């Protein structure tokens, strides 16, 4: 077992355990905090996949911004815990069945698809490659995304503003 495999299994465990805690914790604050190892684990997977730029963005936006935002909203709404309130709805058994079944099915598909040998090497300096891709062939996606950000900023302000 080499170092890469070791790192992968450690990160995968971190991601999945974190994920289970996110969906399972009764305490919402715990759930939100559990989001942090999950997202960090995903960032670690990105490192293993040579996606340095995506890693940086993952940490900045997900771990840094979104998690904090979620914590804030929890504090603003239900109080710190919400422990006195039922956290699950009535379709838990059905959901377990569907999610489990879907996961099993997809894993089965994974096993049956011949993925072929790894393709060529990654570009040596891939933040640069990402930048070129973003600003040349995918500039439309880039611009549309920026437009969506603007719209959601405005939308969030309008929605969350306290009405006089």
């Amino acid at each position, binding site marked *: 077992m080499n170092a890469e495999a070791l790192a992968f299994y450690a990160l*995968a465990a971190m991601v999945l355990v974190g994920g289970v805690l*996110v969906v399972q914790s009764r305490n919402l604050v715990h759930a*939100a905090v559990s989001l942090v190892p999950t997202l960090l684990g995903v960032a670690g997977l990105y490192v*293993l996949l040579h996606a340095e730029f995506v890693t940086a963005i993952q940490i900045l936006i997900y771990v840094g911004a979104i998690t904090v935002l979620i914590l804030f909203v929890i504090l603003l709404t239900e109080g710190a815990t919400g422990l006195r309130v039922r956290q699950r709805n009535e379709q838990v058994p059905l959901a377990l069945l569907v999610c489990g079944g879907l996961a099993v099915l997809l894993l089965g598909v994974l096993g049956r698809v011949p*993925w072929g040998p790894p393709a060529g090497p*990654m570009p040596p300096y891939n933040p640069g490659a990402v930048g070129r*891709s973003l600003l040349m062939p995918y500039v439309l996606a880039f611009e549309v995304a920026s437009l969506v950000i603007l719209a959601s900023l405005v*939308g969030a302000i309008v929605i969350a503003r306290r009405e006089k």
Partner: protein
Amino acid sequence: MIGLSHYLVVSTLLFALGLYGVLTRRNAVAILMGIELMLNAANVNFVAFTKFVDPTFVRGHVAALVVITLAACEAVVGLALVINAYRHLETVNVDQVDLMKG
């Protein structure tokens, strides 16, 4: 050797977890967290496919970045909606927010 399918297994499981969270949670914020898990699972897929299938133009990274961006937008708007709903309906439990029912 860690191959593509290892990453795909992790992402599949993460996706299923997220979906489970979305399906079973009553609290809107918790549902949003489930959605974030699902989006992360998709991103892992994108980045893994980039490495193993289509490395030349790092198209998967671009897709992942766009998804992260949109996830941020979605979180902002979603949480704004939660705050607004809480202000008006005094609850963030989605089974009590059933104005869609005819």
